């Protein structure tokens, strides 16, 4: 409500005569809180808060709201404002500023685009709903109710909104990238063509010089016409060669910069990545022919084995080593010793050399 009062005030002042205009400008350049004047301190900035749209100068905002939310210093306002919501005013007319803010807020929630709808009619309906909400909020008609509706819509469609946001930003980034790449491609091509032109020019000059030289030094056996003819055919040959070269370079550049080509490259890479990754290249013996019994690593558990009959290996000699702290400190472990002994014992079993030989000869 306060906002509207403010608006009608400003309208009223504008309707007054030109004489007052001068004063009005002055007053709009003065902070009503600290009475600092733009005329005297040209560096001052005005900020507004979308809660109530009262203009307050930057230093006042810093002073009043630094310690946390505080009520608006305007008399009769008293709305609780937060420092982080303050922003620079973009439009001179506050009602427009406010409408834009509302539009942004609603647009962030109702963020579907035309492609989300099956036909134009439904899309238009959707736009109509948005406009209704904006109008209501802007003009204070059923404000609380519309705000509640907006809130519930946001809660219900949270995921959808987020998804839409992500796809939208991706699209923008893609478009940006495409544009940049195409621009680079164009520039590369231009640069190359320019280089070519310069080279051509130099070549022509040189040719002419050579022609003159040969003509002046020529002995009478070859006629001047023939020399010129030869020169011309040479130039022709060169031109066709150049054309070919240009084409080649163009395609090369396309491949390098054109996103469509790069897309293809990416797809190729994808095809590779679809191949399963094998850390051992299939060369790993997973089915050991034996099962290792549990082997203790702590010294006191070793004593257990020695004193009782248990489900583990008992080699007094190795047990003695396993208690040596120097061995343990160097990473020596009883488990690896037994593992190795068993590995070596079983390593050849299950390999049938005759069979393997036959396979290799078959290949």
């Amino acid at each position: 409500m306060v906002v509207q009062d403010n608006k009608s005030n400003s309208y009223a002042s504008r309707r007054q005569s030109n004489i007052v205009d001068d004063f009005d400008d002055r007053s709009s350049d003065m902070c009503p809180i600290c009475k600092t004047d733009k005329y005297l301190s040209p560096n001052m900035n005005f900020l507004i808060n979308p809660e109530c749209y009262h203009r307050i100068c930057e230093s006042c905002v810093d002073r009043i709201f630094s310690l946390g939310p505080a009520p608006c210093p305007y008399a009769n306002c008293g709305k609780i404002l937060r420092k982080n919501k303050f922003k620079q005013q973009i439009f001179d007319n506050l009602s427009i500023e406010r409408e834009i803010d509302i539009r942004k807020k609603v647009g962030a929630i109702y963020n579907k685009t035309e492609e989300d709808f099956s036909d134009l009619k439904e899309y238009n309906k959707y736009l109509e709903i948005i406009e209704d909400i904006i109008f209501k909020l802007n003009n204070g008609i059923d404000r609380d109710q519309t705000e509640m509706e907006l809130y519930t819509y946001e809660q219900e469609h949270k995921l959808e909104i987020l998804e839409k946001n992500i796809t939208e930003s991706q699209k923008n980034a893609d478009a940006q990238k495409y544009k940049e790449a195409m621009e680079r491609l164009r520039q590369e091509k231009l640069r190359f063509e320019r280089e070519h032109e310069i080279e051509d020019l130099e070549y022509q000059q040189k040719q002419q010089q050579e022609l003159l030289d040969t003509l002046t030094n020529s002995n009478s056996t070859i006629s001047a016409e023939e020399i010129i003819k030869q020169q011309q055919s040479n130039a022709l040959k060169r031109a066709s060669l150049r054309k070919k070269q240009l084409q080649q370079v163009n395609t090369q550049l396309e491949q390098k910069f054109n996103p469509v080509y790069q897309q293809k490259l990416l797809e190729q890479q994808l095809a590779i990545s679809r191949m399963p990754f094998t850390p051992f290249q299939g060369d790993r013996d997973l089915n050991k022919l034996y099962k290792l019994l549990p082997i203790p690593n702590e010294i006191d558990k070793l004593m257990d084995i020695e004193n009782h009959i248990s489900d583990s290996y008992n080699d007094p000699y190795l047990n003695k080593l396993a208690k040596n702290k120097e061995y343990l400190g160097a990473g020596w472990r009883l488990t690896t010793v037994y593992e190795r002994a068993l590995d070596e014992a079983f390593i050849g079993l299950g390999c049938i050399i005759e069979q393997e030989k036959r396979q290799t000869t078959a290949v």
Partner: protein
Amino acid sequence: MATEVANAVSNGISSEVKSPVQSKYSKDKKVGEGTYAVVYLGNQISTKRKIAIKEIKTGLFKDGLDMSAIREVKYLQELKHPNVIELIDVFSTSNNLNLVLEFLPCDLEVLIKDTSIVFKSSDIKSWLLMTLRGVHHCHRNFILHRDLKPNNLLLAPDGQLKIADFGLARSLGNPNEELSSNVVTRWYRAPELLFGAKHYTVAVDIWSVGIIFAELMLRTPYLPGKDDIDQLDVTFRALGTPTDQIWPNVSNLPQYNALKIYPPPSRQELRNRFSAATDNALDLLILMTQMDPSRRCDSTQALLHEFFTEAPRATDPKDLPKKKEKKPVNEGNDNSNAKRRKV
């Protein structure tokens, strides 16, 4: 016999009589010389395949052949894997031993040092993947390489990375056997080796791979110690000083000393150091450079790490960056173009 002699003459190497094995290969040109060996470039005559012949010098040592040559033959004979250099043949002449190896024109160190080449993260992934596959193959055959460094990771013309130089390799011996801790080039030496451990495990190789991984990302050696003491200092400054808490029993190692206590780096510090690394890359790096060898991941765990499955995928070996040798060819083309223009 006559043909063999003819071969020898036509090759122009020497007129000494060749053994039947020797005549299968040609020695064309000397490409390098080390302390123990001279390397020649050659061809397998039957297939025209390019090969490298490593001629081991003898007579330098009183007690016969050099250890590293024997090791190289012993372990390379056993290993056949796309990411391990192939030992094609071995033959001996009157007074020396010759190893016929596949010819690999480039190594990873050359690429790391060539600042004109840009490494993509997928390239680094591909190299690491191939290194780990090769290391995995060695480890499942219970062979420790013990000298992994970019210089020993050779690159085939088709982009495949191959682990080479098995001069320090050995198989895990008896459980109580003492291994020398004076192995691995200093910058790639695991902390347990720096502490003089004699019963270390395959984890020393994983450490080296981790440091190589870091070097690939940084394009400069990760832990360049000036000497053995400095190496400890540099290592701990980068990764924190190990204590008995984070590495049980570390103080029992023969040469353990916590010269200066550095705190382990926070993840943020590592992230700043490896600014281009993804979280998974950092995870894998941290796993491979665990101080405690029993906590360090093994090659299987490393290969199964998410780093290799996350995007971008490892580059196909044939698309990996290569040493730039094409330049002269291009220039040749340009020249011919220029000539054509002048005509």
